[in-house]
């Protein structure tokens, strides 16, 4: 039996469960919000546990009497049928989908998952950014055809009502990467979705964002996606997501979702500015996808993988510590003074998916 990993607190809840499943090590988390006004697991964390239960076969989940402790003994990643999960409205679909993307390639069978809830908000990555930035990253590591994320209906906060379908093939083993050239930005693409409001709003967002982006590059195309009828969810809302693509295939993504009372012009302006900040970082993946790239490097073959990153986000730093806990892998981090970036190097653990047949 693999040794138990003991952790404390509610931070990085999803990371911990994902790493537990992938490493096969059971995890016990105690002191979850033990001293706060609403102690214990929150509803979205319980919902996430349920989803993990659906994704695996034979997992054991024990939640303590007060809800402040969880014991998770991971089963086998085995999906035999279509899964459907209602994500609720306290966190968006991105909260659930992000860790699923990290797990899906290692399952027994192809994943076909339907998620219902909020598609875009400003806390978690939206379905647009996940589709345009995170999923192409899978291809880098050898997860080839058949990765599909389809938005059937939009769901803006607070009521949601969106629906997405995620399909992902399984992979035998990942490919190692040597990625130290972020390249030059050759084009910028984007989407503005709007639902249950005037389609004109989206145009105002696009105009403002494009104004700023065009000062650098003429190849800017932002698509307006207006949802009507059944596909429009339960609440009005709009959001912009931008992707800058470089000559070496690096993708920088940013997004801004409108809050109540925000001006379309401000939303567009903010998104463009955030994209510039991301470009300034100069990594080969953007801040939000650092975790995914690093995880796949660790799970890669027993070979050296190398990647250039910008500043590490707080979530990434936590993630690196957790990788050390679960897999015993430490990254070599060397700062590159000239470009103010970090070179991250590690040797993979040689994770192979035994259930994938060869040929």
């Amino acid at each position, binding site marked *: 039996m693999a040794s138990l990993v003991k952790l*404390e*607190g*509610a*931070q*990085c*809840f*999803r*990371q911990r469960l994902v790493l537990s499943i992938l490493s096969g090590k059971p995890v016990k988390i105690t*002191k*979850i*919000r033990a*001293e*706060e*006004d609403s102690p214990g697991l929150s509803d979205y964390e319980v919902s996430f546990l349920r989803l993990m239960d659906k994704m695996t076969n034979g997992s054991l989940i024990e939640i303590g009497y007060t809800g402040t402790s969880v014991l998770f003994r991971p089963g086998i990643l085995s999906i035999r049928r279509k899964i459907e999960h209602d994500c609720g409205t306290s966190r968006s679909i*991105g*909260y659930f989908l*992000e860790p699923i993307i990290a797990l899906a390639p290692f399952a027994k069978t192809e994943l076909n998952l339907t998620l219902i809830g909020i598609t875009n908000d*400003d*806390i*978690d*990555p939206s379905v647009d950014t996940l589709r345009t930035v995170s999923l192409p990253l899978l291809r880098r590591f050898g997860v080839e055809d058949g990765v599909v994320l389809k938005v059937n209906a939009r769901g803006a906060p607070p009521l949601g009502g969106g629906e997405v379908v995620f399909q992902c093939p399984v992979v035998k083993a990942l490919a190692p990467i040597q990625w130290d050239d972020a390249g*030059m*930005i*050759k084009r910028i693409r984007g989407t503005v979705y709007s639902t249950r409001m005037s389609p004109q709003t989206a145009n105002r967002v696009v105009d403002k964002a494009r104004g*700023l982006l065009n*000062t*650098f*590059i*003429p190849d800017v195309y932002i698509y307006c996606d207006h949802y009507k009828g059944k596909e429009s969810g339960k609440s009005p809302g709009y959001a912009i997501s931008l992707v800058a693509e470089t*000559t070496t295939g690096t993708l920088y993504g940013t997004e801004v979702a409108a809050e109540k009372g925000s001006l379309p012009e401000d939303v567009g302006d903010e998104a*463009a*500015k*955030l994209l*510039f*900040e991301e*470009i*300034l970082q*100069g990594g080969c993946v953007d*801040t*939000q996808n650092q*975790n995914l790239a690093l995880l796949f490097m660790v799970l890669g073959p027993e070979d050296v993988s190398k990647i250039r990153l910008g500043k*590490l*986000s*707080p*979530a990434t*730093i*936590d993630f*690196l*510590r957790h990788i*050390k806990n679960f897999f015993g892998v*430490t*990254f*070599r*981090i*060397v*700062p590159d*003074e000239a470009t103010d970036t*970090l070179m991250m190097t590690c040797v993979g653990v040689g994770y192979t998916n035994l259930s994938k047949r060869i040929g």
Partner: protein
Amino acid sequence: AAESFKARRSKNIMHLVYGKGGDSEAKDIEKSTDGKEDSDTEVEESGLFKIKKTSQANSGINQFDATKHRLPDEYRHDWHNPEIREMIRNRFVTGKWDNDED
């Protein structure tokens, strides 16, 4: 000398991340998990019950779980200023490149 400086700096970042060894900030990170209860919480007595108040909710070991990292305002640049924009001009194919790159 430059070599040794570089080596030291890379070590520092490793320490910051993995929190072992002499770096002071790394120690802070380690301490924040165990030394927290004594310093940050004050106990107020009201009647029968003791009410524990945490000075910062949602911090330390119970940090909010989200990977999306919104850059704090003080670290942002004024991108409407053309001079600031010049910083990333060369990251685009339309920018001015060095002669050796093509």
